[in-house]
């Protein structure tokens, strides 16, 4: 018994009146991209749901990839059988046996699009339901709120059965809510912020600051590896690497110790905002969590946020660290995040940063710097790469080289 197609039910988007068409088109595109490697699939979109014909492709792979596409409420794999009622009964029994446990209740729900079929829906319900209760005498039949609905669809070509409903990723299709720049450090919080931002339909582009020779190539590779993990939710993410060492050196030379952190962060936000403007983004998103470190007190946020009026989304602002870690484990970024490579935020970190910096003072100290040319130099040297799911940035280069040895 092999699944032959998948029925996909839309999430919240079903309720969103006039934007519906755009949502559905976007979801179709996102699903197609997520399943791109499986070339035999046939994906068709309807007003209220999507059909994916497997045409021999592996259901487990489809399941794994589909579970990461935002905008899907639930999905159900279905089995295709001939229109012979005995075949339908046999498949129904087998499918119910596969999920049966003590106390399970079910009902049969038949729909016919082939109205020529010689049995009507009630007859099919009874015949199939009867064969299931014969095979599983202890199963309960329940018309209201059963544990399992065995769906049967009689179409012109064949009959389709399904009895599993898998919860999708929820949220809104990525891209339906515009684009934001995501400030990705490489720690635990910003990948989680990325995930949560995309979940609300926002397309993200990663802005990552790196500072060679103070930081290693490994820190950059780690940020890219994290991006690749997150790209599983959108198909592709642009990764924008911003060289930051020169700015940091000048800040270090000219700014009093207590304001080193605040001023560095102001520069990062300014740069991110300028990149956002170039790339036509509508917001900035980051992994700030209130009170976690000196730069994430409300006073610090105030002094840093002062450089822009662009909306800043902070999805993890009010989450506890343990909750953030739980999400990072779920999205499989945790192990990468805890790899011990220093990022640009920890170098030049003052031993005693101000937790209550004042905006006016930060502005005053900054006047000693030639901010404009520092920023321009960084912008001139940004590097943009497309990053896809399942790319290996940590060990690829060596694997081939080591192959003969191992």
């Amino acid at each position, binding site marked *: 018994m092999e699944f032959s197609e998948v029925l996909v039910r839309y999430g919240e988007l079903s309720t969103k009146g006039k934007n519906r068409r755009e949502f559905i088109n976007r979801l179709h595109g996102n699903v197609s991209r997520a399943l791109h490697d499986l070339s035999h699939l046939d994906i068709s979109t309807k007003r209220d749901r999507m059909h994916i014909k497997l045409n021999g492709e592996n259901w487990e792979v489809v399941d794994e990839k589909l579970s990461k596409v935002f905008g899907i409420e639930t999905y159900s794999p279905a089995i295709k059988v001939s229109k012979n009622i005995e075949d339908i009964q046999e498949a129904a029994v087998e499918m119910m046996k596969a999920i049966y446990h003590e106390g399970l209740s079910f009902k049969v729900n038949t729909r016919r699009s082939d109205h020529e079929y010689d049995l009507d829906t009630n007859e099919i319900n009874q015949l199939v339901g009867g064969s299931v209760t014969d095979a599983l005498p202890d199963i309960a039949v329940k018309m209201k709120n059963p544990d399992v609905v065995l769906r049967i669809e009689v179409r012109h070509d064949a009959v389709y059965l399904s009895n599993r409903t898998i919860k999708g990723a929820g949220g809104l299709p990525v891209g339906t809510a515009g684009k934001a720049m995501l400030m990705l450090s490489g720690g635990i919080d910003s990948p989680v912020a990325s995930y949560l931002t995309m979940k609300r339909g926002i397309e993200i582009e990663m802005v990552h600051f790196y500072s060679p020779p103070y930081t290693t190539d490994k820190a950059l590779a780690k940020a890219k590896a994290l991006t690749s993990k997150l790209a599983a939710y959108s198909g592709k993410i642009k990764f924008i690497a911003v060289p930051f060492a020169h700015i940091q050196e000048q800040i270090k030379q000219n700014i009093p110790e207590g304001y080193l952190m605040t001023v560095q962060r102001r520069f990062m936000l300014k740069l991110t905002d300028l990149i956002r403007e170039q790339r036509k983004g509508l917001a900035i998103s980051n992994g700030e969590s209130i009170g976690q470190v000196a730069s994430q007190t409300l006073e610090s946020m105030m002094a840093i946020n002062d450089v822009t009026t662009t909306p800043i989304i902070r999805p993890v602002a009010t989450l506890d660290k343990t909750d953030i870690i739980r999400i990072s484990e779920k999205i499989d970024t945790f192990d990468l995040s805890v790899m011990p490579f220093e990022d640009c935020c920890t170098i030049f970190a003052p031993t005693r940063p101000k937790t209550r910096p004042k905006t006016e003072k930060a502005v005053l100290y900054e006047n000693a710097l030639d901010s404009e040319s520092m920023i321009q130099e960084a912008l001139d040297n940004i590097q943009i790469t497309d990053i896809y799911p399942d790319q290996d940035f940590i*060990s690829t280069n060596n694997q081939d080289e080591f192959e003969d*040895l*191992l």
Partner: protein
Amino acid sequence: MIYFDNSSTTLINANVLNTYQAVSQKYWSNPSSLHKFGEKSFMLVEQSRLQIADLLGVKGSEVFFTSSGTESDNWAIKGTAISKRKLGNHLITTQIEHPAVLNSMKQLEELGFKVTYLPVDQTGIVSPDSVEQAITENTILVSIMAVNNEIGSIQPIAKIGDILKEYPSIHYHVDAVQAIGKNLWSKLFHPRIDLMSFSAHKFNGPRGVGFLYKKANRQLQPLLSGGGQEQNLRSGTENTPGIVASAKALRLTIETQQKTAQQTVAIKRELLDYLTDKPGISIFSPDASDFAPHILTFALEGVRGETLVHLLEEQEIYVSTTSACSSKDETGSGTLKAMAVDDRIAQGAIRLSFSSENTLAEAQEFISKFEEIYKRFENISY
């Protein structure tokens, strides 16, 4: 030359030796060095670790490199004793373990730990019930070998694992040095096992490399303190060429283990056919499902094993008395003693152990050479 002593050590595989040499010359940097040259060696060690973990079906972070099977055993036992000394002071093992286990236990006894040495039945197998009966509230470790090195008896590792599910705080250590690559893994690997010892030179890998499987979250104090290698649990600059060569040797061994097992058991059967029912011959390694395919131990009553070893060596046939480690020890075989084999017979025991390099023709040659020796003593003893 006929080499029937593969449980003592094996010939390093030619491809493995090539790897050893290539790595020694190309990736000789210290894996802990910060520079790229060091990073390469680090990656290579980690890749090897992952390969071994994959072959064992465990996680990379659960594989720790050591210098030998002996070190792995010492670490598993003494490391557990140190980690868990506040929870209890009782350890359980068998009378037929390798000296690396038995003597570690003896050292711990001198420090005040209590050790139960479980007996075995006359076939050389410990009873799972006796393990359960020996458990007290102070028990912190159960250490049982998977395959006995002297006669090849397979211990009921999975059954003991099932029993230990009820005692989650006890560490379960398995000395798998003789078991790896013998096509026995599915039978022996049990999810309850916390610690497992291995040695590379037993599977055509280089000398000087062992590894220990330690299940995630199981606490084990290090014996070697220093620069913090191996997750700060086993310090000492990594033996990069040895580690990479071992990973390769394990892959080659596991890829061919089914065929090797068939081949060695065919040799074993050929020899058993000859030895069975021969007057004066006692066989300790029957052709049975609870005996490893590669070990055949038997005795010729009234003739010392050592004498047989030397007579065979004149024919360029190399075998062992019992385990090579104790071969030069006058006390004889610990396993046979534990099986209550009469001393006169036990002293006459020799162990033949086979590898993929051995052939049926060698078995036949052994038979004809041994027959001459046998005839020579026939008149003296019988």
